[in-house]
């Protein structure tokens, strides 16, 4: 039983570390978004709290924490309380299978531990897709339980959008899965070792450039961000499904949206850009004779890739106007879906031919 206890303790430590990193990243993102938007619109962004405004996230958190918690009259109290939690849990649970660093194994007290991934399950990417699809329930139930027409319409719109674009996310991933022959994110990143042209974005025999574009567009839509933030179109639906939410419950929805952004960025980095692999073979620290510290370089590369995706989210928000709802649906089903399907056929043929040539 002590082995079980040790395993539990190690897993809990890993989970705490990953959760800590994600929450800190989300705090950083709330500030970074406002700063980046400010610079792009030629203004300063938040400047008041702390030097250069860097303590703004804490001010926001304290404000949300102490705000009055309002449950509207006629709302379904149970579901109104459950919805933010249902939204938040799927957003955080997906990080369990993301590999943050090299695929090392450690021996601690007789059991083998992979320090840079909480759980290397053999259906990693399907696990993330499964829980991403559960996130729609929080939104749709939050909209329904508020007992407000704006919330209900916002929730329905948002759920329809998430289901439509989830399909494109799933189909764009299949090309990578065909190339690797595995669903485990650890094995997918391991297969992209070496120079950067081994990343699946550029890798022969079937560069996944189209799949990558489809994935990025669909993941922006799936996280309900601009230009696909129809669910919270201010001019039509006030604030969408969280119109009636305030205080801590609103903070949960907010947190879930940002955690989802981080999650899709991590998946994009792991699937298409080699995850923690540097663009050159091996690591510089290893060449300098410090192989035990090379994980720092690897995790830094992962962070750089993830943060460049997150920057892309802000960039899109500052650049593009919102789509109309029918345009959004048409674009998803009539443009992105055929591209993703054609990519699967092309990748399968290319992989088959290259296997026959060998």
């Amino acid at each position, binding site marked *: 039983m002590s082995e079980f206890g040790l395993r539990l303790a190690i897993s809990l430590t890993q989970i705490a570390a990953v959760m800590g990193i994600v929450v800190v990243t989300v705090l950083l993102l709330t500030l970074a978004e406002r700063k980046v938007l400010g610079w792009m619109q030629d203004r300063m962004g938040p400047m008041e709290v702390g030097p250069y405004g860097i303590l703004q996230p804490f001010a926001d958190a304290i404000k949300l924490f102490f705000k009055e918690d309002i449950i509207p009259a006629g709302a379904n109290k149970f579901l109104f309380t459950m919805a933010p939690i249902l939204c938040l849990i799927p957003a955080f649970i997906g990080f369990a299978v993301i590999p943050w660093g090299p695929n090392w194994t450690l021996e601690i007290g007789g059991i083998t531990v992979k320090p840079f991934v909480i759980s290397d399950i*053999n*259906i990693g990417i399907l696990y993330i897709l499964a829980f991403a*699809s559960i996130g729609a*329930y929080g939104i749709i*139930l939050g909209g329904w339980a508020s007992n407000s027409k704006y919330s209900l319409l916002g929730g329905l719109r948002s759920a329809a959008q998430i289901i439509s674009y989830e399909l494109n996310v*799933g189909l764009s991933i299949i090309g990578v899965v065909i190339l690797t022959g595995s669903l485990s994110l650890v094995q997918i990143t391991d297969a992209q070792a070496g120079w950067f042209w081994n990343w699946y974005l550029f890798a022969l025999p079937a560069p996944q450039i189209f799949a990558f574009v489809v994935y990025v567009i669909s993941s922006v839509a799936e996280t309900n961000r601009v230009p696909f933030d129809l669910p919270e179109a201010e001019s039509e639906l006030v604030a969408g499904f969280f119109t009636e939410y305030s205080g801590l419950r609103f903070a949960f929805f907010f947190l879930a949206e940002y955690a989802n952004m981080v999650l899709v960025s991590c998946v994009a980095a792991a699937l298409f850009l080699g995850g923690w692999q540097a663009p050159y073979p091996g690591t510089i620290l290893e060449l300098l004779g410090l192989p035990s510290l090379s994980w720092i370089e690897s995790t830094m590369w992962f962070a750089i890739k993830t943060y460049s995706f997150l920057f892309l989210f802000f960039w899109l928000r500052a650049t593009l106007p919102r789509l109309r709802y029918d345009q959004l649906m048409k674009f998803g089903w009539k443009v992105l879906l055929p591209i993703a399907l054609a990519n699967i056929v092309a990748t399968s043929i290319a992989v088959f031919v290259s296997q026959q040539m060998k």
Partner: protein
Amino acid sequence: MAHLFFGYFAGMITITSILVVALRNPVYSALSLLIMFFHVAGLFITLHAEFLAAVQVIVYAGAILVLYLFVVMLLNVNRDDRYHSQWRVVAFVCVPLSIEFLVLLSGTMGAANRQPASLPVEPHTADNTLAIGRTLFSTYLFPFEVASLILLVAMIGAIFLAKRDIGENEAKDVTRVPGAQ
């Protein structure tokens, strides 16, 4: 440990599937169906069928049930008591089911000592997804293709049925446009 997990999952599946039909509020029924799907997925995981578990959650919980919720919310179904007093139907379904249950129970009493049928692959080590793919595209290729064809036909039929009215209305609208003359 395995028995404990099986007991938990099986118990929850039974309770939540009874709640699906017993609860008066259709949204709560849909939610207990969601909990049931999760526990079925959990049961698959205890059997080392991770792929099936993931597909169970993605397809049933993630897509089909969300559409059910759509229908329930948009139709604004009231807590209608009409559907909760169909005792004749209940008796018609339950009597054969309980007889079947008794027959199965008496049958398994003798078979309790028998070993389970040997599996073609070692479930703990083999790649579950690979095994399913191999079986589906070799042994069961024809049923698989037939099933996909039937689904395609059903999808085209649904689009045809749903789209017919819209097409007629659009045609009427076009003739009324003044600039078209």
